[in-house]
């Protein structure tokens, strides 16, 4: 077994046989003279014609290529008749050199200039050399160099690919791409990423392998080995299974026993919402409205807010969108709302509390949310951040009622809210646990301080205990008012299982975590999740809780999560 390594640019595990790119066109001999029967003028005209035919050929390929490949192919086609390249060749032809040698040297000069410039330019040198080889092939009347033809799928090995090659890559034939040269910014890398084709660049030594050799490629690790055995085949199988599971969320959060756990997205604006909806999110569990306000000196108008909120609502059709009212203060100061001179802003006038110092902003925001909601199909819920007492919850519910908003709720991120959740839920329709702040306030550890990172861990059993108390408060209140989680905790597949086991009804997270969380939830029943939650609550530390739960969830290791 031989091993090679390079820079992995596209993950994937593949076993297959290799094919090498055909040897590059042979160089026209140095000093090759113009044929005695041909004048310099005729040779120059012939070169122009060859260049034009190469350009036409590249443009034809561009017409049927993917959008990414199209752009590079068109740029390469443009190079084929470039005045710098051709004038350089013409000058040499006029000194008596053959057209083949002339364009060869001219291409070399231009490529060297680009290499000297470094970076992006140096990587474009390959394009110039590719165009040069194609022109020489056209002059000689031989087929242009390119990807080998094969009836069976193969792993392509090349020194580096030019756009013209990558553009004609048939992903049904080429199952992985390996280059001995190139870099992570080369066309090979760019196009492999765009095509989702497993690829490794800069893997030295592969040129010595014979065509037809069977190899194992791990695009994530950037490793290649010959004579793959059972270990490698198992790795490929595992990858295929994971890739299928982890790339797509089917829009249905459900456990092994059929218990539904709607998986929602945290979003911060209209564009975000469109992406989250496309990723299958079953609604929005946290719309951060700060995006409307941050970076401004004055409050945005109601009309402006309506348009921004409506863009998010419309992305989700008739699904649920939970809007969090402005959460300014602490790490998100706003000049018209918060006092920057507070000695301890995390414990200062932030979130819902700004309504006491700057009344009016919240009422206008609620009115904008109500107007946007009335103009859309979405099921709009509204919640206030930093609620600490039942009377604050009651005041917020009254403001929502005044604005015409039917479903008021609160964020539970202050320990006092978790401890009094029964009384708080007596005033509002739902609660959403903000685990980031709840952890910070429970552990008295600033979220932004690196040395306190170990304390700032949502696996801390004390934090889990407060989550359990919040759910218990809802049960005691008696009206089945939902308690969700919208925080980093929900995006951790193992912790997501624990949260559901603690009785949380929905999980909201960044859209890219939906598929992983869904894949793990699917392997566990609600009852088992309850047992794992008890395991975590009983653990002596955050690390012990995490380890115990992860060990009890074999799906995590299988999925590589």
């Amino acid at each position, binding site marked *: 077994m031989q091993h090679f390594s390079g820079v992995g640019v596209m993950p994937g595990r593949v076993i297959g046989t290799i094919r090498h790119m055909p040897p590059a066109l042979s160089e026209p001999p140095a000093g090759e003279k113009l044929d005695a029967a041909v004048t310099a003028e005729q040779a120059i005209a012939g070169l122009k014609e060859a260049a034009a035919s190469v350009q036409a050929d590249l443009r034809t390929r561009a017409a049927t290529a993917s959008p990414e490949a199209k*752009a590079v192919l068109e*740029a390469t086609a*443009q190079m084929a008749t470039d005045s*710098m*390249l051709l004038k350089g060749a013409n000058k040499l032809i006029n000194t008596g050199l053959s057209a083949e040698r002339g364009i060869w040297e001219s291409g070399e000069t231009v490529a060297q200039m*680009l290499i000297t*410039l470094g970076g992006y330019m140096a990587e*474009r040198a390959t394009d110039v050399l590719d165009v040069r080889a194609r022109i020489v092939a056209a002059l000689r009347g031989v087929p242009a160099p390119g990807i080998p033809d094969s009836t069976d799928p193969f792993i392509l090995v090349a020194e580096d690919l030019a756009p013209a090659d990558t553009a004609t890559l048939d992903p049904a034939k080429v199952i992985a791409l390996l280059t001995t040269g190139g870099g992570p910014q080369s066309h090979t890398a760019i196009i492999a990423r765009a095509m989702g084709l497993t690829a490794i660049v800069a893997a030295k030594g592969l040129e010595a392998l014979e065509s037809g050799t069977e190899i194992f490629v791990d695009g994530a690790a950037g490793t290649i080995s010959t004579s793959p055995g059972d270990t490698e085949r198992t790795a490929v199988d595992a990858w295929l299974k994971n890739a299928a599971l982890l790339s797509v969320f089917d829009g249905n959060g459900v456990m092994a026993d059929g218990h539904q756990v709607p998986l929602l997205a945290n979003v911060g604006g209209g564009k975000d919402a469109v992406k989250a909806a496309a990723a299958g999110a079953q609604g929005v569990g946290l719309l951060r409205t700060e995006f409307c306000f941050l970076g401004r000196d004055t409050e945005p108008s109601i009309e402006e807010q309506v348009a921004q909120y409506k863009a998010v609502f419309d992305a989700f059709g008739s699904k649920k969108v939970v809007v969090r009212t402005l959460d300014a203060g602490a790490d998100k100061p706003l000049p018209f709302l918060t006092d920057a001179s507070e000695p301890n802003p995390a414990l200062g006038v932030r979130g819902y509390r700004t309504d006491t110092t700057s009344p009016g902003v919240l009422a206008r925001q609620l009115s904008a949310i109500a107007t946007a909601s009335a103009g859309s199909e979405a099921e709009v819920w509204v919640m206030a951040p930093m609620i600490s007492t039942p009377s604050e919850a009651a005041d917020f519910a009254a403001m929502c009622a005044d604005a015409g908003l039917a479903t008021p709720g609160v964020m539970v991120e202050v320990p006092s809210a978790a401890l009094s959740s029964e009384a708080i839920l007596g005033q509002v329709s739902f609660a959403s646990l903000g685990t980031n702040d709840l952890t910070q306030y429970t552990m008295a550890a600033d979220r932004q301080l690196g040395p306190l990172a170990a304390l700032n861990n949502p696996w801390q059993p004390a934090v889990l205990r407060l989550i359990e108390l919040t759910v218990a408060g809802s049960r005691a209140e008696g009206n089945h008012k939902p308690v969700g989680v919208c925080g980093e905790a929900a995006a951790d597949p193992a912790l997501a299982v624990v949260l559901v086991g603690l009785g949380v009804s929905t999980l909201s997270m960044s859209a890219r975590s939906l598929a992983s969380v869904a894949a793990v939830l699917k392997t566990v029943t609600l009852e088992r999740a309850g047992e794992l939650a008890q395991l975590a609550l009983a653990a002596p530390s955050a690390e012990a809780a995490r380890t115990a739960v992860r060990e009890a969830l074999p799906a995590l290791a299988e999925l590589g999560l």
Partner: protein
Amino acid sequence: MSERLATIASASGLHARPAALFAEAAGALDIEVTIAPKGAPEDDALDASSILSLMTLGAAKGDEVVLRASGDGAEAALDSLVALLETDLDAV
């Protein structure tokens, strides 16, 4: 001979797509247009329709370049090319 000063607006500079679009526009004109960095001697000016020349010029966003042309329609041609350079072609 007409001259114009232009500031490169494309985020990536005069590379890749912006360079391709500019070279194509310059090549489509009936007159020859040259491009040179601001302050460079006129003799060192490059063919504006050559994508390779544009790439070796290595102009970055914010760099100033001089466009030159003579003959009928030179003024209008230069105006249109300046407008192109002063547009962020990466964002189009």
